[in-house]
């Protein structure tokens, strides 16, 4: 199922197009986000990170660099907090940065501004972020007062290692919904929950009623890929694990399971076992239009270039059959992807990962497009579909094949067939011709 999927037949996948027709520099895109804000006067800006810059890329497209001087080449995360109507930018090294659509403010929180790892995450009336000390939190409804290695306000892991990512997650009881955050280490995940996270997080002791807590859910599975943590509506939370698999935490549940076993290759085509373990931060997952897309860097590449798509309609309607994956999808070198689906948008965007190609923003899975944009080039997509080996009900006899018939739609290019037996290829590049 290379570069094709099942949707009313075996269908070649949709391709991509570039937003900007010339590169913004010989760098790779390190993060992207559509920042929706404005309250009763809604507006939005598309943000990308590359090299040392944060830029706004309009639909025209036109680039406006809003911040320079960041440490170069760091994977960058964006998260919008509705309470301040601002977007927060973190890369693990620079101090936390905020953009309100007009002004960029660095060093949020003053002298002890957190150098947040992964995206910040809201819960109830405050923001949380990861630092080397653990998970820090703000005072209620503000972003400039953070806990700093507090004895009570800083949440620490039960097992060794730094936290890698935070993701919003609600826990469902029989008659209740508890707001929470799933916090992930490389090989563990936790539930952060509570109803009162303290009036003053800089105080020496917790105030009356403070009940924020962190609970270990599993001490054997986590992630080193913050950009892989992905929520799917009605299904749950997914992430790419450090043992090169995909983990699924069902909506509202605290018990998860692996769903990526089918991507482990047993044949000549490499699977997710070929993921570059030195670049796990380059793995991304995103959900768009019923498909959960996983993209991995392979070999020595630091950017993702091989995608696998999981059909969420199958998982939702026929969970007993297990996950249905399509792939590998090859031809794109997209290092990050984000969904733009507010204020009339309904688009999946991606950023170029290969610095030799340059800084490009792409639209992914474009309807009626069957070429892949790579920089300024539009490359034809090659799909390959191979059937299982059939014995036609008579395994003990040698069959005589006269022809292969195919019912196809929209066929304007050259499709060819290879015929294979278990022992090898019998015929190659046999052309498909119109029946006359």
């Amino acid at each position, binding site marked *: 199922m290379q570069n094709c999927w099942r949707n009313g037949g075996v269908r070649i996948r949709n391709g991509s197009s570039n937003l900007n027709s010339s590169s913004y520099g010989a760098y790779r895109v390190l993060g992207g986000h559509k920042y929706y804000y404005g309250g009763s006067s809604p507006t939005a800006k598309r943000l990308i990170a590359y090299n040392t810059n944060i830029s706004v890329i309009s639909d025209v497209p036109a680039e406006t660099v809003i911040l320079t001087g960041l440490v170069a080449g760091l994977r960058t995360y964006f998260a919008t907090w509705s309470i301040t109507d601002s977007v927060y930018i973190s890369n693990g090294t620079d101090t936390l940065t905020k953009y309100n659509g007009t002004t960029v403010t660095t060093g949020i929180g003053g002298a002890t501004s957190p150098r947040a790892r992964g995206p910040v995450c809201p819960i109830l009336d405050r923001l949380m972020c990861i630092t080397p000390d653990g998970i820090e939190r703000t005072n209620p409804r503000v972003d400039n007062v953070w806990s700093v290695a507090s004895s009570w306000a800083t949440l620490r892991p039960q097992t060794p290692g730094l936290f890698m990512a935070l993701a919003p997650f609600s826990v469902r009881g029989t008659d209740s919904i508890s707001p929470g955050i799933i916090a992930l280490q490389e090989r563990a995940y936790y539930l952060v929950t509570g109803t009162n996270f303290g009036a003053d997080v800089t105080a020496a002791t917790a105030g009356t009623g403070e009940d924020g807590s962190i609970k270990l859910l599993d001490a054997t599975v986590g992630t080193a890929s913050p950009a892989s943590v992905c929520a799917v509506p009605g299904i749950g939370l997914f992430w790419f694990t450090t043992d090169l698999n995909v983990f699924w935490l069902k909506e509202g549940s605290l018990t998860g399971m692996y769903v990526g076993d089918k991507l482990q290759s047993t044949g000549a085509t490499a699977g997710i076992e070929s993921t570059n373990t030195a670049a796990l931060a380059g793995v991304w997952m995103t959900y768009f239009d019923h498909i959960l897309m996983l993209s991995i860097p392979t070999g020595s590449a630091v950017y993702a270039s091989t995608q696998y798509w999981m059909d969420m309609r199958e998982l939702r309607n026929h969970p007993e059959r297990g996950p249905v994956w399509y792939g590998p999808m090859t031809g794109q070198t997209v290092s990050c992807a984000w969904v733009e689906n507010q204020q009339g948008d309904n688009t999946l965007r991606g950023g170029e990962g290969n610095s030799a190609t340059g800084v490009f923003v792409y639209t992914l899975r474009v309807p009626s497009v069957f070429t892949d944009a790579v920089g300024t080039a539009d490359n034809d997509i090659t799909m390959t579909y191979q059937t299982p080996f059939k014995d036609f009900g008579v395994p003990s006899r040698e069959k005589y094949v006269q022809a292969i*018939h195919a019912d196809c739609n929209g066929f304007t290019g050259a499709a060819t067939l290879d015929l294979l037996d278990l022992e090898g290829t019998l015929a190659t590049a046999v052309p498909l011709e119109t029946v006359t």
Partner: protein
Amino acid sequence: MAVVTNLWGDGSLWGDGDVWNGKNYSPIEYVANQEIQCHRLSIKLTKTGSTDFVLHHLVARLSRIRQAAFTHIAYIDKVTPSRHLSVRLSHQGSEFILSELTLLASRKRHQPRG
């Protein structure tokens, strides 16, 4: 810019597109003429291009009168009268996948018990 396939019924009449067998129409049957013998057949379809492609159905046309007896090189024809049979399969040196192991016993040659 990317090539946008917008040929499905974009002419003056409904369905009057440059690509007549578009998304909204019945599929067209194509054939790959190839006469060949096989035991277990897999078909790999490859298509390169900048336009849509949907495969609805794929079927092999076999000649019933030209089937041959099983001549697979791994076929084992052992006359081994046995009441209880076990098979031990060994392999080394390269990848090997065993997907099915079936015993085809001849009932005509079996020995009566006792």
